[in-house]
């Protein structure tokens, strides 16, 4: 048994190192053919996302606090505001302490923005990319509501906390004290709905308004306010998360404030909202849709790997 603390050896086999390089070439060709420009943005930033459940790797840059970025989103939106052009970034992202068969604290994110697209159009492009990279992949899509109603018989937008708790406790053994609606929705996704997904690529769209993150919130065909956010799952594994982007600075400011209030309530460290992102929105961000896709997970699915370390040259235990 190799001791990860001592060995010089990579965690991935040589053919996986080759497969990654080949995947990057294919991704770059895909976007180059569509005239989407590759951009590079800082990994060390003075601000971090306000999302309560995204933990930061904090760095000390000669006495000034920096955050290793969990996504290139804010910087890319600033670029978009300054330079209206469809762009993508293929680079590293960081989330403190996330380690599992599908998580590594340092991972590779493909993020891209399409001017004039809404979430539905961007979903179509995600499908085209994944099918181009993994030919023969079966694709299906359903709304977040259909997903819950089909398998659990509850409407995730209108169910009360008590109803969600009862549904959750019927499937999951947990001390439910203090869990809110979003926690129960997430638990039902990770414990029940995700594992039951059919093989292939599945899009889930129209997320609950309470999970809008940076997506627009609009009424759906039944008049319920939903987030124009989608996720793609590949063989039951979360792969990509996209939005029809919020461009209204006032609402962005409110969401920062709501996140910070939630952080306070949970006893998590405060994160100031990025004033430069707000300045970009004040200046004006053209209507666009953006998505972030986990490249390591895509490579895992493409190569039939079951653990993320199989596709990383050196996983966290060997880094």
């Amino acid at each position, binding site marked *: 048994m190799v001791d990860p603390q001592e060995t010089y050896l990579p965690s991935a086999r040589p053919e996986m190192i080759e497969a990654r390089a080949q995947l990057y070439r294919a991704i770059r060709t895909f976007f180059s053919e569509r005239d989407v420009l590759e951009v590079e943005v800082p990994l060390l930033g003075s601000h971090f996302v306000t999302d309560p459940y995204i933990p930061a790797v904090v760095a000390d840059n000669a006495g000034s606090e920096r955050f290793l970025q969990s996504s290139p989103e804010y910087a890319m939106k600033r670029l978009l505001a300054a330079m209206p052009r469809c762009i993508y970034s293929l680079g590293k992202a960081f989330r403190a302490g996330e380690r599992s068969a599908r*998580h590594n604290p340092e991972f590779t994110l493909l993020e891209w923005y399409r001017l004039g697209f809404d979430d539905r159009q961007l979903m179509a492009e995600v499908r085209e990319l994944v099918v181009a990279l993994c030919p023969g992949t079966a694709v299906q899509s359903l709304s977040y509501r259909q997903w819950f109603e089909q398998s659990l018989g509850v409407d995730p937008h209108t169910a009360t906390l008590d109803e969600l708790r009862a549904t959750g406790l019927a499937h999951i053994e947990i001390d439910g004290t203090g869990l809110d609606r979003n926690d129960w929705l997430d638990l039902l996704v990770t414990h029940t709905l995700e594992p039951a997904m059919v093989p292939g690529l599945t899009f889930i769209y129209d997320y609950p308004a309470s999970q809008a*993150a940076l997506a627009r919130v609009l009424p759906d065909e039944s008049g319920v306010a939903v987030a124009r956010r989608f996720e793609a799952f590949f063989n039951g594994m979360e792969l990509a998360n996209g939005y029809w982007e919020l461009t209204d600075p006032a609402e962005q400011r409110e969401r920062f404030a709501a996140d910070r209030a939630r952080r306070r309530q949970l006893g998590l460290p405060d994160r100031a909202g990025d004033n430069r992102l707000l300045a970009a929105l004040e200046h004006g961000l053209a209507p666009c849709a953006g998505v972030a896709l986990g490249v390591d997970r895509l490579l895992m699915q493409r190569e039939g790997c079951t653990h993320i370390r199989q596709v990383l040259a050196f996983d966290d235990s060997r880094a």
Partner: protein
Amino acid sequence: MATYSISDFRTGLKVMLDGDPCNIVENELVKPGKGQAFNRVKLRNLTSGRVWERTFRANETLDSADVVDRDMEYLYSDGEFWHFMDPDSFEQFAADAKAVGDAAKWLREQDKCIITLFNNAPLVVTPPNHVELEVVQTDPGLKGDTAQGGTKPATLSTGAVVKVPLFMNQGDVVRVDTRTGEYLGRASKD
């Protein structure tokens, strides 16, 4: 008593849950991109033997269970208790039928066992992985049988019944895997 946070959970760690000592079998982080982190933990209840899954928030903690495994020698059974001795300290422990469980049918005096102590009392008795026991009853073998042939039941000196090849006879000593109850081979007599 030590306290463990869920992120410290590793396979083999012993913790108290709902008043019972449990062994961590597996701990998996579950974390949607935007959602709260949870841990799906598989535990074995050491009292009941039941393995089940429970989900914890990353900030939950559990107390450690005072559970230790010790090598001991089986002495004898008085019908109600099975008596064991630590060969180093000569300390003796009495295990009840619940702690001994299925191990009872493999216990031969002076064999080395692992006794799991919970608050210094036997909780689980684990027999050696391999034991050598004498066949006390089996139907006579048929002439010309070979090792490739069929099997027949044989009762061993401890009361266990295992499937043995047809050529084995009463008085032979067999080697058995106690985890599966499988016959491994013929052993030389003591």
